[in-house]
């Protein structure tokens, strides 16, 4: 795969240059140029370290309360992981930010502009990677990008330049004339991402950006997202792949039943609410009951699920490792975001 180097220039702005070395040793120089100034409203330039600020946001569909009085903020340059089981209210929340769902109550400020009142100004500065493929199937890769550039009313020359940059950045330049039907899943996702970046957004909303992709395709996308992050793009990421969220996000926000369960730095939340490390032990009910009853090896929380015992240790628990010995029916691993997620939202299936 290609290697990527990033150079930062001095001073403000998000100018960064990614150098992408192609497989055949031929080099493509790719410049993601600065946010064009004409998109910045004249007021609102100075303040705004807070990109998104949501207060008391609520949505009712008839009697059903889908989003229940939630508040959060996203700072410039952060990637916020927006997590929750199916039906937790994530998509409704994002759609309210975009003005596609009308809020029942609350206040949304994006770039210090009130949504949805200034939806046009706001959306000119946002890029969205939707979960469902909404590419134009009749059009080629390049035409898809040009059409989208049209919706942002980018001048023709600028659009051509951006399309070239993005085709190279996402390694799609060899497939520019291909119609969408002939693209692989990974290529479609990359094109969706390229499309979302056509207006050089300050805020990128990613809804399950790597769903259904093979590991190679996922890694390529993560690599590109890391470059964008280094350039200062603010991101809101929803994903059920919690390894992806751990990798990309500096902040997470876990939603359930329309409410914010926790919000903060994922490492800190895991340490505070789950612990340091986790033992997963297989065994018969009798064995596991006996082990749980006599457990006194360290400060930990225990959970029995089927024929498994989970021990969430709040401190180093090498004593337990000694007791369990050399058998292969247990694993010891660091506590992760998935543990936190399950702890907060439970193990029962959410099928709406």
């Amino acid at each position, binding site marked *: 795969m290609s290697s990527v180097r990033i150079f930062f220039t001095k001073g403000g702005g998000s100018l960064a240059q990614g150098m992408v070395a192609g497989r055949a040793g031929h080099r493509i120089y790719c410049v993601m140029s600065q946010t064009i100034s004409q998109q910045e409203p004249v007021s609102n330039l100075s303040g705004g370290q807070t990109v998104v600020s949501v207060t008391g946001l609520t949505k009712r569909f008839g009697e059903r309360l889908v989003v229940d009085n939630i508040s959060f903020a996203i700072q410039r340059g952060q990637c916020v992981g927006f997590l929750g089981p199916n039906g937790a209210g994530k998509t409704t929340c994002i759609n309210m930010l975009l003005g596609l769902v009308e809020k029942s109550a609350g206040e949304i400020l994006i770039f210090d502009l009130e949504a949805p009142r200034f939806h*046009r*100004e706001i959306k000119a500065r946002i890029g*969205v990677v939707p979960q469902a493929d*909404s590419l*134009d*199937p009749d059009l080629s890769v390049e035409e898809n990008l040009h059409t*989208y550039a049209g*919706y942002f*009313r980018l001048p023709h020359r600028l659009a051509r330049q951006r399309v070239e940059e993005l085709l190279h950045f996402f390694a799609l330049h060899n497939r520019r004339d291909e119609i969408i039907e002939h693209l692989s899943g990974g290529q479609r996702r990359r094109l969706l991402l390229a499309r979302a970046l056509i207006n050089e957004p300050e805020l990128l909303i990613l809804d399950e950006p790597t769903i259904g992709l093979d590991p190679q395709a996922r890694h390529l996308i993560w690599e590109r997202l890391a470059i964008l992050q280094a350039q200062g793009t603010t991101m809101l990421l929803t994903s059920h792949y919690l390894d992806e969220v751990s990798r990309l996000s500096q902040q997470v926000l876990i939603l359930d039943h329309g409410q914010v369960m926790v919000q903060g730095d994922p490492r800190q939340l895991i340490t505070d609410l789950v612990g340091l490390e986790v033992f997963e032990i297989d065994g018969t009910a009798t064995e596991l009951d006996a082990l749980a009853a006599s457990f006194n090896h360290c400060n930990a929380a225990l959970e029995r699920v089927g024929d498994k015992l989970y021990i969430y240790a709040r401190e180093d628990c090498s004593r337990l490792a000694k007791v369990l010995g050399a058998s292969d029916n247990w694993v010891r691993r660091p506590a992760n975001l998935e543990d936190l997620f399950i702890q907060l939202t439970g193990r029962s299936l959410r099928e709406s």
Partner: protein
Amino acid sequence: MNGFSFWTIWLRNGRVWKKHILATLIGNLGQPLLFLLAMGYGLGREMTEVAGLTYLQFIAPGLVASAVMYSAALETTYGSYTRLTVQKTYEAILMTPIGVVDLVLGEIVWGASKGLLAGVIMLLALPLFGVAPSPWVVALLPMLFLSGMFFSACGLIMTALAKNYDFFNYFTSLVITPLFLFSGIFFPVATMAPPVRGLLEMLPLTPIVSLARILCYGRFGEPILLKIIGSLLATGCAVCLAGYLLRRRLIQ
């Protein structure tokens, strides 16, 4: 709405249309041309003159108007519904600065443009059937576009209400086909019994068919202002209703 943002929707549809140009033209023009041949030429040879015209001459302008109706209405039902559901094109568009009003206008103006194109091709084909339109026919073009706007808006109303493609069967069977048959394309409305005549003159295609006949042959016998005003009002209402219903469908 923001200036001419709706134009970008038009351009998008045009870009896609260019790839299927032959199929859509044959789809839209096949029926009116075959009717002209079968009814006008086949049946018309055996008939006496209708309202001072041969039967072929009598039905030709109305078939031009019907080509506009079919082309516009089918574009904003099957075409728009595909963009709304299967392709999620509207969803993608609404994530950009384009608003619902731009989207609705873009779709309606696009449908009307396709309608107008079908009408123009029909007009150009008329000399092949021995029908020579008068220079007044140029004044017919804006009316055909207006009628295209009306039927595009009606189609989009159906799209906003549709749960699946089968829903459009109601529209084609209960609205479009009756309009095709009873709007004075095939028989003169003016000679019907007064209550029937009144009813048929209320149909939205009827004034366009009579305007088409008047302007095609430059024979100004009946008042045309009322027909134009009526068509304008009906189109305005249909466009507003389409906008309201599609907004309700897209923004929850």
